[in-house]
């Protein structure tokens, strides 16, 4: 036995951890405790995991209790499936822990880098954190478990390739399963689009029919028209959430369609290219047709404004129409007209929730946690989750496009009853036709998806970009000025985090995207 090893770690590591613990005691916060070392993370060697135990031909995890962590938009899905998971595999689900939207950094990261026993068995988080979380070395690689699960190959083949290859994998290993396949779509109030007076007036002014715009230029005109016509009733043409946590996602819609890229080959940021600036200018033009105070709108503000009927149209995640009820419909986003006369559309695949399993937990809990995450992600369950208005989960699997899946949008969720947090249980749409339109819109958006960064450091890049976009929205900077500043900050981040390593990450990201035809 190597006598330099103490309980599975080297003596040097033990001494280092001791020193960091002392540091943590001194500064009193979780920060230093969290900074437990320089683990390279990722790339864990594949190991052999025994297939789940079966008793009388049935899976049995021995009643192990699983605690899940996720943000508010995950909704109560763990509660809904508690009974099923117990019946199916003898897994108990403890009351899940929730964190506020967009606060993964504070809620999850310290525990992962702290290298301590994980307080949760399954975590759900925005997909751009995958790179950072894998780099902590404390996410369990899932392939060795998943390969032993019945039906996994079929499930895996059905996951939308961008999500499966780009969002769930790091260095070729699967570290996460999909819970939510987010994309942006275009939402509108049916009653305004079908209003004869508005239709006549719009045709007179713009010489085209009132309806969802094909291009961003048309959208700017439509939003201005609707604001002018409806402002007297307190209704505005459009809006977007300018808070830094998400403002960049609208920029991916506009600048993405104009062909913006994050970096060039030499890792020089290109977000301030002509395409990037024009993309932001489109958003600023849309701000002019938004309610006062748009420069401070949070994501939740945009939901409540829509639900209160204050907004006639907007680009948003596909859930919006599900949250809003009968007068809301959705379709593909507008795009940018290319020199060849074709319209290029990109839909931000922004956010998208993943399910992962922290490494530091007992093996039996880990195995049950991977199973539970797999089942939650599997269409056996997710078919119902994505068609339920009491969460923010969207389709990511071929099974979610089937007639059965479409029909589910018109029916109650059979996996749950009602409770204080989800007082109703009925279909979102009253007709299969409307449900089909909605699912088609999501599918089109997914096919034109524009992926967000998800390599280590993505959180910082996106925060900086989102902050500068908000600075432009509030009039502190021009679109060019804001993106120039963001590009300068991105260049500094590249240098600080190590140019060579960042270049490797970005090249791998680009290579995956290219393989997927993006």
């Amino acid at each position: 036995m190597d006598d330099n090893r103490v309980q599975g770690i080297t003596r040097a590591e033990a001494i280092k951890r001791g020193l960091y613990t002392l540091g943590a005691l001194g500064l009193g916060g979780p920060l230093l405790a969290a900074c437990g070392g320089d683990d390279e993370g990722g790339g864990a060697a594949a190991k052999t995991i025994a297939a789940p135990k079966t008793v009388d031909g049935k899976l049995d995890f021995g009643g192990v209790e699983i605690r899940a962590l996720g943000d508010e938009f995950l909704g109560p899905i763990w509660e809904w499936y508690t009974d099923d998971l117990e019946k199916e595999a003898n897994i108990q689900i403890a009351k899940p822990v929730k964190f506020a939207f967009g606060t993964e950094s504070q809620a999850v990261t310290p525990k992962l880098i702290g290298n301590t026993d994980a307080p949760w068995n399954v975590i759900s988080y925005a997909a751009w954190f995958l790179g950072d979380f894998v780099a902590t070395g404390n996410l369990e690689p899932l392939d060795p478990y998943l390969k032993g699960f019945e039906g996994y190959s079929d499930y895996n083949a059905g996951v939308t390739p961008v999500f499966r290859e780009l969002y769930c994998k790091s260095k070729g290993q699967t570290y996460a399963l999909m819970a939510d396949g987010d994309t942006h779509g275009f939402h509108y109030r049916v009653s305004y689009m079908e209003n004869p007076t508005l239709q006549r007036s719009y045709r007179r002014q713009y010489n085209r029919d009132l309806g969802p715009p094909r291009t961003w230029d048309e959208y700017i005109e439509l939003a201005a028209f609707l604001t002018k016509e409806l402002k007297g009733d307190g209704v505005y043409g459009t809006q977007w959430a300018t808070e830094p946590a998400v403002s960049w996602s609208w920029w991916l819609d506009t600048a993405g369609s104009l062909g913006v890229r994050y970096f060039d080959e030499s890792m020089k940021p290109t977000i301030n290219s002509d395409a990037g600036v024009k993309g932001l200018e489109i958003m600023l033009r849309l701000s002019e047709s938004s309610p006062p105070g748009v420069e401070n709108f949070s994501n939740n503000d945009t939901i409540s404004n829509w639900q209160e009927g204050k907004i006639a149209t907007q680009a948003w995640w596909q859930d919006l129409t599900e949250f809003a009820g009968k007068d809301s419909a959705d379709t593909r986003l507008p795009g940018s007209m290319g020199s060849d006369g074709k319209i290029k559309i990109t839909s931000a695949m922004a956010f998208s929730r993943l399910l992962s399993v922290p490494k530091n937990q007992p093996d039996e809990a880990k195995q049950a946690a991977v199973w539970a995450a797999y089942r939650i992600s599997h269409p056996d369950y997710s078919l119902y989750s994505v068609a339920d208005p009491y969460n923010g989960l969207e389709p990511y699997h071929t099974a979610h496009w089937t007639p059965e899946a479409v029909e589910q949008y018109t029916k109650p969720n059979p996996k749950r009853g009602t409770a204080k947090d989800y007082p109703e249980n009925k279909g979102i749409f009253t007709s299969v036709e409307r449900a089909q339109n909605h699912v088609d819109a999501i599918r089109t958006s997914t096919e034109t998806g524009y992926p967000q960064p998800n390599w280590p450091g993505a959180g910082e890049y996106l925060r900086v970009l989102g902050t500068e976009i908000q600075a432009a929205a509030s009039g502190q900077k021009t679109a060019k000025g804001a993106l120039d500043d963001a590009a300068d900050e991105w260049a500094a981040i590249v240098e600080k985090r190590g140019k060579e390593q960042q270049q490797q990450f970005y090249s791998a990201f680009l290579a995956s995207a290219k393989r997927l035809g993006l």
Partner: protein
Amino acid sequence: MSERSAGAEQVAAVLAPPPVAPPPPGRTRSALLPRLLIAPAVLVVAGMAIYPSIWSLWTSLHAWFPASGIPRRWVGLDNYIDVLSSARFWNAMKNLVYYVVVGVGVEMVLGIALALALVEFVRRAWVRVALLTLFIMPMMLAPAVVGDIWRFMFQRAGVLNYLLETVGLSAQNWTSAELGIWSVIVSDIWQWTGLTMLIVFAGRAAMPESLFEAARLDGASWWFRTTRITLPMLRELIIIALLLRAMDSYKLIDSLFIITNRGAPGTSNEVTGLMAYTTAFVDFDIGTAATITWLLGLIALVLMRLFWIAFRSNR
């Protein structure tokens, strides 16, 4: 011997350490014992303050991203140069100066005025107690709760805009890049004016009324009594209140975080504490965060020194 030197000798005698009794026969005094007795305290200070400070200083000289698995890298003073040359840092510092100087300044003036008014113009004891309680109640609320209360009041459809529109004025964006920090200052004044008021009220109430009675008999006006008797006698207490509030304001994060949604729009309403927090706990750029906190610490040391010099020269 002169009278003066005799006096000095007396003082020296008083200040001299008491004679030490010789150790009992058979026992010699160990030099180790006193050291052992203070060792726990020294260890606690070393472990809880000195070591972390040195560790933090060392960290500020590195690029370190523990959440990205990147090994720590020596960068010397690069982090200091980056922070000091960043417009974001100086904007955050400007906001902090506004917050501390204007916010605490108004709290001091208001607190002193209200405390003196309470003592001198409110005759019934129960009314005094009721008013005092009313003013100090906001202090009992958690800053996060205060932040939420004011966030609702400052929002577009909040009560402040409702009142403005009721009297025919246009609604304001209270958390805009221009107004955000001032809105936070207003909430801070609402919450903390009571502290100065409480301290000054206690000091004023403890003063002998005979002093003021004598001044009144000598024909001293209210203004004369206030500026020549009351305020000079309350000087130390006012300085304590000022120090308490200034130190507390210096580490502002919570209410500003909530009212302006993390210093938004952009980073226009950020203060240095929030910038350090975001850098450390959102970006996990620990080296830069340590640099910001060291700069803040150094600035605080300089300010304390200047304050102390000014205080001593005015004694």
